[in-house]
C-alpha cells in the first residue's frame, strides 16, 4: 500500500488496516532457536535435548518439562517419524503460496517423541495418518530453507 499524503485521505472513511502480509511466514529465529536454524543450513535436523532426563524436546523449548533445567542442548536426529495429522490446503493464506496449491501441511511425530509442524510431500505417499516420513530440506515459497517431510508408502 503506497503512502498517500495526509491531505488526500478522507479521514471520515478511515484507512484499511493491514497486518497479515507483513507477518505470514516471516522468518524470525530467536536466540533459543538459533542452533536449530544453523542445523537447517547444514541440512541437519536438530532437537533440544536434556542430558539429565535423556529426553528430546521441541527446538523452541527453554526449560526441561521434566527436571526444569535450562541447560538444554541441540542434538542432531535422523529425522524419521510418521504422519500424525495433516491437511491439504486449497486456499492459500497469502499470495506467495497461491502457485503451490494444493500443498499439504501437518504434524510429524518423530521417533524421538517430538512433534513438529511441517510440510509433507508424497514420496511416493500417499499422505495419510500413520504413514512413515523422513526429513528433507527445501527452500519454500518465501525463500526460506525449511525442514519438510517426505511421506513414504506404508
Amino acid at each position: 500500500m503506497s503512502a498517500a499524503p495526509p491531505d488526500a485521505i478522507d479521514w471520515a472513511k478511515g484507512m484499511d488496516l493491514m497486518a497479515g502480509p507483513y507477518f505470514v511466514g516471516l522468518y524470525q529465529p530467536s536466540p533459543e532457536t538459533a542452533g536449530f536454524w544453523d542445523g537447517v543450513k547444514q541440512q541437519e535436523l536438530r532437537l533440544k535435548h536434556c542430558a539429565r532426563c535423556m529426553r528430546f524436546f521441541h527446538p523452541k523449548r527453554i526449560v526441561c518439562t521434566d527436571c526444569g533445567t535450562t541447560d538444554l542442548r541441540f542434538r542432531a536426529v535422523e529425522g524419521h517419524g510418521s504422519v500424525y495429522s495433516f491437511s491439504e490446503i486449497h486456499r492459500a493464506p497469502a499470495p506467495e503460496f497461491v502457485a503451490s496449491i494444493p500443498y499439504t501441511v501437518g504434524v510429524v511425530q518423530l521417533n524421538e517423541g517430538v512433534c513438529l509442524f511441517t510440510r509433507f510431500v508424497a514420496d511416493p505417499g500417499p499422505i495419510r495418518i500413520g504413514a512413515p516420513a523422513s526429513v528433507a530440506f527445501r527452500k519454500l515459497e518465501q525463500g526460506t530453507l525449511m525442514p519438510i517431510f517426505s511421506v513414504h508408502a506404508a
Partner: protein
Amino acid sequence: METNIGSRIAVVGIGRALAWRSDSERKTPLQLGAAAAVEALRDAGIKRGQVGALFTGRTPQAYMVLQYNQALLNELKIGPTFNTEVTAHGGGALGTLQLAAVALHAGVIDYALCVTNEASGIWMDQVTSNAAWEGDLQFEAPYGASTPALYAQFASRYMHEYGVTPSMCAKVSVENRNWALHHPHAAMRAKGPITVADVLASRMIATPLRLLDCAVWYPGGIATAMVLTRADIAKSAHRRASWIAGFGQCSTHEWVGERMNSWGYEPIQNGPDLVHTGAGVAARQAYAMSGLKPADIDLVQSSAPFSFANLMMLEELGFCAPGEGGRFAESGGIDFAGGLPFNTMGGYLSFGQVAQGLYNLHETIQQVWHEAEGFQVPDARVGMVHGHGGPMACHSVMIVSREQLR
C-alpha cells in the same frame, strides 16, 4: 476447587453496538465499545462514577493499542479501582465476567463493567491477518498454514480416531443455518437454508474442511457490554438480573505444533492428543459450581469456528459421550426442530465470527430473559455459553440462569 460463588453474582445490564462493513459510516471498535458500554450502564440504571471495575477482552485487532482497557476508560470517563484486559484469545471474552465475578464475590468492588469489541470485519482482510495471528511465525507460518489448515489438524485426528464422517460434520452447518434464518443480524440469514449435500459440494478449503464447514467472518463489528453486581445489590437495586450459575476456564497451549509436545496437566495429563480440549475441564468446573448437569441446560452456544469443532464441543460440554458428537448430530441431537437448541444465533458458521466477543452471551441472556431477537427458545431458563480462542487452545464456559439457583 472450593467455592460458593455459584449464583452469587448477576448481570444487571447489557448493551450491544453493531455495525456492518456496508454501512455508510465505518465504525471503529472504540466507537462501538463506548456505545455498548453506555447502553449497558443505562440498562443497569447506574452512573459512570459507580463503575468499580473495567475488564475488556484483548485489544481489538482493528484497534491495536497497548492496553485497550485504558483507551476505553479514557473515553467513558470512569475511574475503576480494578481494571485490565483479559486475554486468552476468544476465551478471554467470558474471562472478563469470570474475573468480575471473583472481584465482586471478594467484595472489593460493587459494580463491574465488562466490554468486548471488535471491528476487524470492517477494517481488515481477516483471511490473511488471522493466519498470521494463529500460527507460530517461526515454525508454522513459513509452511503456508492457513487458519483452517491449523484447525484441520484437529479435524483429521478427530475424524480418524472416532470414525466421524464429513456428512456428520455437515449437519452442524445445516442446523446452524436454520437458526440463523431467524436472527435479524446473522451474516448468512439472506443466503437461505442449506443441505448436507450443499456442504459436501462446497469448495475444499483445507482437507477435510470445505467452505461451508468453516466460520464466516462477520462482515462488520460488534461490541458487547455487561454490568455485573453482587446478589444483595442485584435484588435490592435492580429490576432484573441474569444469574451467573457457574463458570470455568482452561487453556492448554498456544500453537498447534506445540500442543503435540505438551503433557502433565488436564486434559492432557498423560500425553498430548488432538481430540481433547480445555472445554471439558472448563465445563466440569462450571457444572460443579452451579450444581447443574447437562440435562438442566435449555440452550447452548459455542464459538467453535468449524463444523467438526462444534461436534467436539458437544462432547466436551457433556451433551453426548466422547467420540459420539457426530452420531449425536446425525440422529437429530441438534436439529432446529426438536433437538438441543444449539447456537441459537446461527453459530460462528452462520451468524458469523467477530474476532472475539460476548455476543453469544448477550444472546443467551436475552434468551433467558425471553427477549430473544431471533427465535425464542420456549421457556428458556438456563443457558450455557462456550467461548473458544486460539487453535482449540483457550476455552471458557459460563452457565447463566433466569432465577438465582442457590
